[in-house]
């Protein structure tokens, strides 16, 4: 068939792109695939960036993002704007799915097999690359991380981006569990101080 005339469809898509996330999610909850497509366009780069940062492989990042967005599509009706932004909700799903992927036995086994590289991979060794990041907020968050003492930064990165449990981190660093927990708390509190609570909320 000749290419479908797109004019009316394009106008409809343009109208959708002007809607706020919560309005689009209302449409998604009534199975509107076009509204979902706009949501995907809006949040998939952030989702993919987090997924890739966590799992470190493109095919696994693809799987994590696919699982997360399909979960969003299927559970769209449960989104409640009063509990936070859609971006935060999406990234929360991505984080959980990436942790699931990382903690599946086979993945962890392969990570265990190359333990030597783990700390290099998850510590902020590239702090000097701040200028390389396009978005200002990325630079600010990374700069705030750069303010942390090394031991606090390490446990936060291993936990949040590495998907390791506090017990695993304690074992890996040969450090008492209580110390690891304390560093996590101190690190987060220091980050809060540097970012400022209002600023932190603005990124979510």
């Amino acid at each position: 068939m000749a290419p479908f005339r797109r004019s009316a469809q394009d106008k409809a898509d343009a109208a959708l792109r002007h809607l706020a996330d919560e309005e689009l999610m209302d449409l998604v909850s009534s199975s509107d695939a076009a509204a979902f497509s706009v949501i995907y366009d809006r949040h998939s780069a952030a989702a993919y960036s987090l997924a890739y940062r966590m799992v470190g492989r493109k095919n696994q990042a693809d799987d994590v993002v696919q699982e997360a967005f399909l979960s969003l599509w299927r559970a769209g009706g449960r989104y409640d704007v009063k509990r936070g932004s859609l971006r935060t909700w999406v990234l929360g799903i991505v984080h959980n799915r990436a942790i699931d992927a990382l903690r599946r036995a086979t993945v962890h086994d392969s990570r265990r097999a190359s333990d030597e590289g783990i700390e290099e991979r998850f510590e902020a060794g590239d702090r000097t690359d701040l200028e390389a990041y396009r978005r200002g907020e990325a630079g600010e968050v990374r700069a705030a991380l750069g303010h942390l003492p090394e031991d606090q930064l390490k446990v936060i990165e291993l936990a949040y981006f590495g998907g390791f449990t506090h017990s695993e981190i304690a074992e890996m660093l040969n450090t008492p569990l209580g110390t690891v927990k304390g560093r996590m708390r101190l690190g987060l509190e220091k980050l809060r101080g540097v970012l400022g609570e209002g600023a932190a909320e603005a990124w979510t």
Partner: protein
Amino acid sequence: MDVNPPTHTDGCGSDVAAYALGALTGEETRRFEAHLETCELCRTDLAGLRPVVDALPAAAEPMEPPAALKKKIMRVVEAEARDRERAARPAREKRGWFAWRPVPALVAACLFVVAGVGIGVAVLNDGTEEIPGQCIRGCDRVAMTIDEGHGTIEVAGMDQPPEGRVYQVWTQRFGEDPRPTDALFTVDKDGSAHVDVPGETGGVDQVLVTDEPRGGSSAPTTAPYFAVKMS
């Protein structure tokens, strides 16, 4: 003035940061969430750390997902949207031919308000008009272009007609029964078709398609697959 932060007198707060970072095991998470239900101090503590953790993804190096990933996800989403529509459809079809004849004005109005395209008629650069239609069953997308009073239907994602039958185009004027046309068609392997609507479209209220025996019928014998409302 300094305000004393909340303190956890029984040590219950030691897992708040680990929980916020997702660093508890599944079992520890379940236990901590049960504890949260009863401990306001931990809930307050957690609420203070959450925005910090929520900002962490911004530190990940920005990356664009591959274009193929969106296509893969949208294939699943669109298939599920069609399934949900089909699942919701029988109740509407049971009302039969007579009941659906006027395309429900409210539904159409809602669709076009959302789409932001007025009543849905788009005037294209070459002076033709494109009118989106409403798929009722067995098709994904339909529209009709009007060029100097002659209509052409373009449909996509349409099932093959039942064995031994063909699709037939009908035109209907306001307050009248549908009139048969000699436009009989089937669809390509990909479910698409491009069909000229015989005669002038002036005065026609809507264009419909049903499945009929080969050779067509003089009155529709099945419920329509789609309708294009002209006015």
